[in-house]
Every structure is written in C-alpha cells, then in structure tokens.
C-alpha cells in the first residue's frame, strides 16, 4: 500500500518535489508556529480529532455537532466495517514485517479480528450477509501488502549484502504505522493516529476505502495536511508530502490507487479554515443544521433524520 510504483516515483521526483522546493510553504503555516496566528487555535480548551476536521461528508458539518456536542455514537454500517478491517489488515501485515515477525496467517487473523467485528455488529442480518464478500476483499489486500513487503525486503537484502537485518527492515520498510502523535497544540486530539509515515521519503500516508463509483475528491487530502501540521508542531521538521491511498473495487476486484501531493499553502489554509469552523461548532455548541441532502453512508443519518421528524 505504501510503496510507490514507477509512475508515482517519477511524478514525485520530476514534478512534485521540484515544485514543492520552488514554491515552498509560508513560515506562518508551518506546524512549529502553532503559538501564533493563524495556526493558534481559536478555542484552546477544545479538542477534535483530525478525521472530523478533514471530513466533508456532511455538507453542514453537523456530524461534528452530533458527535462532539451531543455525544452521539454513530451507527456502524458495512462500509465503515470494511474500511476499519482494511486498516487493521494493512497495519497488521506491515507491522509483522517491520517487527521482523514475518508472514502471518490471514485465517488466524480473520478468526480473531474479522469475525469479532461482525459478531459485535448491532445490525446482525445485514452484517452477516456481507461477511463472506468482505473477508475475500480484505484477504486480497492482505496478500498484496504481504507480497509488497516481502519483495522490498528481498530487494534490499540483495543490494546491500553487508547490511544488518535491522538496517534491511528499517530501510526497506521505512514506515511508522499507526503512528501516534499529540495534536493538542493545534486544537486536535492528543491521540492522533497517522496511518503511515514514511520517514525516509517524508511522506504521510492516509488509507481510504472508497465506495464503488466514488471519485477521489480533493478534500480527502485534508487528512494528510492535518497530520503534517501536527507532526511539524511536535517534531519541528518540515512535512511537505502527502499521499492518499484509495482502496476501492472495480468489477468486484480490489483496486489500489494513490494520490500523491505537495502539502502547500492552499491545502494548509483550507485545513485551518475547517479546523476553526469545527472548533467553533464544538466550543459554542452551535448546531449548523441538517443539510438538504445527507451522505448515504453517514453514521448519523438516522439520528439527524429522526430528530427532524
């Protein structure tokens, strides 16, 4: 998932990096300037998770109000379940190689993780009907990730015969997976979790499970922008590259594509705008109202529409 293909590597080296170096990022938008405007949060006592800042599913951002102000727990659906399992599967496989444990059994993992997810579902019939399909979908991604990691390790070992095993792993798989970072300096949660940070190439990865026929919209880049600014605020080093990894399906076949980009001023400014807007909703307990049209896999649709009646 986190290895770039030839075309992506060319795009990175030939276009994105040169452009990023030339254009640069305004100093005031670097995370380490968290104590000054515009990064300084308007409401320093409020905290919201980065996924709520980036999320544009709800046109009025009522999802923020419902979850953070009303404290409503969203109703899980098959889309969310599948996305969550994909994250866990990729995390599990990559970490097993990073930690030098080696290849793991998918069946054993599914028995523990997958079955439990479906058993705990509050929508039994719908969940059970999808279980077989989800299992096969996740298994394909599992195998693909495993092969990628194995291949990278072999390539590294064969090109650096005197490297220690630790060096081979650290350079072939330069990934901090589910990296925990404290976002409190920016009004974010103290327990942010970055899907993956490639420390050798300086790329922040965010994994997204896309519904069939959905398009890769630009706002999905906001998640990486938020993590980049948060990482800058903690580590005080520039984080300029982001990549959204989309897992979707075409004709039932799992498909992976990557959107690689420069985290420049525009994107940072957009993220700030969203953060301020959403912190205000929380701090002032401001109900932004139910949108005219709800997203069909929104976790809060039933709650909002029930309230509307």
């Amino acid at each position, binding site marked *: 998932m986190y290895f770039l293909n030839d075309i992506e590597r060319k795009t990175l080296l030939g276009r994105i990096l040169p452009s990023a170096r030339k*254009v640069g990022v305004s100093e005031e938008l670097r995370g380490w300037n968290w104590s000054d405007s515009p990064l300084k949060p308007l409401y320093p006592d409020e905290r919201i998770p980065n996924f709520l800042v980036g999320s544009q599913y709800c046109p009025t951002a009522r999802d923020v109000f419902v979850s953070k102000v009303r404290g409503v727990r969203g109703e899980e659906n098959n889309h969310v379940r599948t996305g969550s399992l994909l994250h866990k599967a990729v995390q599990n496989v990559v970490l097993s190689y990073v930690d030098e444990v080696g290849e793991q059994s998918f069946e054993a993992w599914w028995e523990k993780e997958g079955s439990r997810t479906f058993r705990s579902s509050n929508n039994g019939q719908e969940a059970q009907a999808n279980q077989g399909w989800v299992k096969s979908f996740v298994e394909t991604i599992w195998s693909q990730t495993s092969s990628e990691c194995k291949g990278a390790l072999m390539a590294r070992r064969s090109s650096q015969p005197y490297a220690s095993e630790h060096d081979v792993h650290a350079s072939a798989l330069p990934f901090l997976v589910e990296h925990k970072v404290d976002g409190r300096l920016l009004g974010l949660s103290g327990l942010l979790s970055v899907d993956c940070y490639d420390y050798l190439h300086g790329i922040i990865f965010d994994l997204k499970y896309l519904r069939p026929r959905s398009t890769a919209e630009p706002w999905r880049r906001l998640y990486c922008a938020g993590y980049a600014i948060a990482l800058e605020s903690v580590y005080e080093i520039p984080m300029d590259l982001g990549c959204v990894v989309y897992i979707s399906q075409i004709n039932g076949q799992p498909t992976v594509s990557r959107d690689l980009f420069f985290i420049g001023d525009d994107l940072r400014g957009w993220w700030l705008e969203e953060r301020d807007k959403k912190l205000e909703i929380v701090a002032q307990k401001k109900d932004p109202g139910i949108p005219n049209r709800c997203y069909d896999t929104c976790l809060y649709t039933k709650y909002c529409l029930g309230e509307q009646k």
Partner: protein
Amino acid sequence: MVREEGKVLYAELPENLRQVIITGHGSISTDALVLLSTYGVDLILIDWKGKVVSRLSAPEMRTVFTRREQYIAYKDSRSGYLAKAFVLAKMKNQKALLGTFAKNRKETDSAAAERITHFKNVIEDLITRLEAFEPASIDTSRPSILGFEGSASSTYWDGIKEVVPEELKFDERSGRGALDPFNSMLNYGYGVLEGETWRAVHYAGLDPYGGFLHADRPGKPSMVLDLMEEFRQQLVDRTVISLASKKVVTSKDFQIEEGFCRLSDEARRALLKELLGKMEEYLAVGEEKMRWCDLILSKSRDVAQYLRGEVNNYNGFYLRW
C-alpha cells in the same frame, strides 16, 4: 530618469519597469513616452481622489477573437457565470479577512472578536447560498448576484469597522469623494489596483469596458472593475488597515478640501510605497509561486481563455486566511 530642478532623483532601465504611476504635479517628455511604449510599460495618472484620470499603453497586440467572444458572452450564460465567480471570490476573501482579524483579536479583545466572527459567519452563509445559485445571462442574473454582493459587502464593512482605529472616523464605506480618512485611503488604493488591473486586462486582450457584473456605462471600465473585485480585500483593504493599525497614517495626515477628505502627500506616498511593494511580493498559488501583479495578469488571461472556450471554467482568486 526622474529629475527635480536638474537633479536626478531616480533612474531605471525601461525593461525593468512594469508601470509608471504619476500622482501629483510634474511633466514627462515625449521621448520618455515613446520609450515606455516601446517596452510595453504602461503610464497611468491618478488624481488625489484615487481616480485614474489618464492611461497610456502600447498599441493592442492581441487578435480580435477574445473581444468578439467577450461581447457574445454578454448574451449567454458565460456572463452570469463569470460575474458569479468574481463575486464568490470577493466574498471568500471578505470572509477570510474577517476570520483573520477575529483570530488576531481573540485574546486582546474577545468581544470584538466575537462580533467579527458573527459577521464572518453571515458572509459564509451567503457564500453557501451563492454557490447554489445557477446563473443565466447577466441581464437575468445581475439582480440576484448583486443582491448577494450587496449583503456581503455591508456585513463585511460592519466587521471592518471593528478594526479601524476610532480616530479615522470610519462609519460606512463610501465611493469616490470620501468624507473620512479611511475611505479616502481605500479609494486611493483602489485607484492603484485599477491601474494594475487595467494593464492586465489590456494585455490579456480583453476590452476593459466590456464587463458583466458592472453594467455598461460610458467611460466606465466595467471589465476592469469586475476583475478587481477579487483583489480588493487581500491587496488594498489589508494594506490600508495595516497602515492605519500601525499608525503609519493618522488623522493628522488628512485635510478637508472641496468638501472631501484629502490625503497628505506623505500619507499618499506611504500608501503607494506599501501597495506597490506588495505588488512585487510573491505568494504561493496552487503549485506556483508568483508576484501579485503577475497573479492579476494570470487571472485576466484565465478570463480570456474561458471566454475563448479553451477551458471550461474560471475560478476566482481567494486566500483562505
């Protein structure tokens, strides 16, 4: 070369110039005019009220195709689409500027910050509504678009009132013939921006008088005024407010003349220096870094490209903070 009583005050190669602005008294030789024209340097004269009273530029070098499309577009939905894009960008800049001011005042004056945030939110709501508006040809859509623009502007100036020092006696926005120092500075700044935008519109091959949002009127450069809308806040308003807040310009720099408020030469120079300096500053726009003056030219060319049908859309310029 600029001389005063035989003494050389300033010398510059023409290829290094983009525009010459004459403000105040003096004379210029015909040789200098020819030289400026040869190098494509515009010469503009701005009076003390901020009005562009004269403009000299090199002959039109573009084909007539852009202008022809500009006139045809007036009758179809492209005119409404562009007018909406200009106003939308203007409103987004208004919202961003108020957001910045609110944020900066959160700790020093939280009550003012709350009020500014309220105005910002009203504009945000108007933006959402304008985004949903489907424009037709400008004659049909103008009342609606101007309605949004008017509501947003009146809210915006209510917000700006909160940040202008009291001694400048800013009560409401007034056009040419300002009665208070703050409006007087704004008008002068918009005059400078108009000159720069005019140059951009001219070099993009557009007719400066064939606008969409601003209705046709003899002598009114409607296209220039249309395109200016998205640059007023971040370029002029921000600069004028900054000068006023830092007390670079104070109430002592103004006097009432012919019933209007007139800036002192020092204040005008300070404003001009700041604005022209800003035009040369670089900003990041998408994956490019460009000067403000080049950005205005780039947006003019975007309008021309849209009118010629080379691209399907036009996105107005705005900053998010």
